[in-house]
């Protein structure tokens, strides 16, 4: 396979996740998942509701702490509580179904916040020189404006998120994630909360990123999109990856009966 020649970016090994429902009951959501994501890969995750797709994605940057196994990102195990997870999350962009733009910040502040805050922190935090702080801010602003121009929303720089359409919000959420220059982008159903007429603009932006070579993992119900953009597709069912392959293999020649049933419903 061509991808094997590339570098491993995220290596998931023996990943388990369970939620404690109450004192007696534990819900196993992910059961011993092994998977390797290589640089430049576009991976789509499909599967029935409740199969653990979101949980799997959220374990990749430890938004949910795994209860077992490891997530190696650039060789470090993120599941290890001693690892500085914040440092790694800068390199893992995440886009949510509900956008989650910071409501108390303007569009450009949304994009600049993390680069400025983390930039200043690295330059010494409160003790950083004013000149250095100023430079960090200017650079972040320049970069934010560049991103806004790219997504065609430059004129929205100074408005608050509550005035934007869903499609605009999601494109800005993507820009916010891109502002940290991440090595991989995680998308959890990025278009599920959008009105149909806005799905296109968001998918187009994601496609653009894919074409530029961004590594990405996308949980999606948009089968057409998955087929077009992804080079690997994972089918999840009952907390396991029960089938994995190229779009061709998954959509044309599904082997797993559950996958066949799933596809017959959604296609």
């Amino acid at each position, binding site marked *: 396979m061509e991808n094997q020649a590339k570098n491993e970016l995220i290596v998931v090994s023996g990943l388990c996740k369970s939620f404690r429902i109450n004192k007696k009951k534990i819900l196993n959501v992910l059961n011993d998942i092994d998977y390797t994501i290589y640089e430049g890969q576009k991976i789509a995750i499909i599967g029935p509701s409740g199969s653990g797709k979101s949980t799997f994605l959220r374990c990749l940057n430890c938004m949910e702490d795994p209860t077992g196994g490891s997530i190696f990102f650039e060789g470090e195990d993120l599941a290890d509580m001693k690892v500085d997870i914040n440092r790694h*999350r800068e390199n893992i962009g995440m886009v949510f179904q*509900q956008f*989650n733009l*910071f409501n108390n910040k303007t569009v450009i502040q949304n994009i600049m916040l*993390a680069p400025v805050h983390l930039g200043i922190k690295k330059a010494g935090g409160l003790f950083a020189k004013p000149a250095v702080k100023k430079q960090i801010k200017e650079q972040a602003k320049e970069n934010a404006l560049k991103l806004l121009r790219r997504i065609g929303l430059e004129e929205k720089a100074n408005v*608050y998120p*509550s005035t934007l359409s869903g499609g605009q919000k999601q494109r800005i959420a993507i820009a*916010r994630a891109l502002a*940290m220059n991440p090595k991989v982008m995680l998308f959890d159903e990025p278009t599920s909360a959008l009105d149909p007429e806005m799905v296109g603009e968001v998918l187009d932006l994601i496609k653009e990123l894919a074409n530029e070579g961004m590594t990405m993992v996308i949980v999606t119900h948009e089968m057409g999109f998955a087929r077009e953009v992804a080079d690997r597709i994972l089918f999840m069912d009952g907390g396991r990856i029960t089938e994995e392959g190229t779009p061709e293999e998954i959509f044309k020649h599904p082997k797993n009966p559950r996958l066949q049933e799933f596809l017959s419903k959604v296609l």
Partner: protein
Amino acid sequence: MDFAHQWEKFWLLFYTNGGYKRVFSEGLVNTLQIAILGLAIGIVIGTLIAAVKVMPKYKVLPRILDGVCNVYVGFFRGTPLVVQLLMAYYVIFPLIGVTVSSLNTCILVFGLNSGAYVAEIMRAGIQSVDRGQMEAGRAVGLSYAATMMKIVVPQAVKNILPTLGNEFIALIKDTSVVSFVAATDLYKIFTEIGNKNYEYLAPYLMMAIFYIVLVLGITLLVKLLESRMQRADR
């Protein structure tokens, strides 16, 4: 003796003889000082306690902090303010051998007391902010504390502004007990005016008017602030 006559005598003391000067320069100033600084201390303490309360609890440190906060809140909500003032002024400070003025004791105790109440208000405020805000902050690499301070708490404060206004009003009204520890406030000054000829009807009526005007003024201020903050996000 009829009311008009009583009022005339009061007015002589209050206005013509300049009694109002002390009402403003000592009574009102102290009342406001205790309430404003008390609330400020309360907000700082309350926010810290609330942040501990909403922290995930699977590590040891948050659990210990949580226990400490529970004891704190339990004590300050479980005992009357007057008892806390008396304890601080006549028991604790003398025992540890520090001299703190009446006024400073009041500011401190009001702050500590208010912290216990603001904590609950703030916790509700923080929980009213969508969880996605915290997640988005963490996802871009901000720490829990940074996300709390830059994203969640500002939104929480906006949501609880009316309730914080009520807390401030409650504090203003509670200041009327500070004479228990020999502090001077509106109550004390008006009582002194009444003591001059042992007639309290008019002075206390005037005192009530002062409190009402204060409370209405603050209510108005909070409303204004609220509508300005609403507009800022549009």
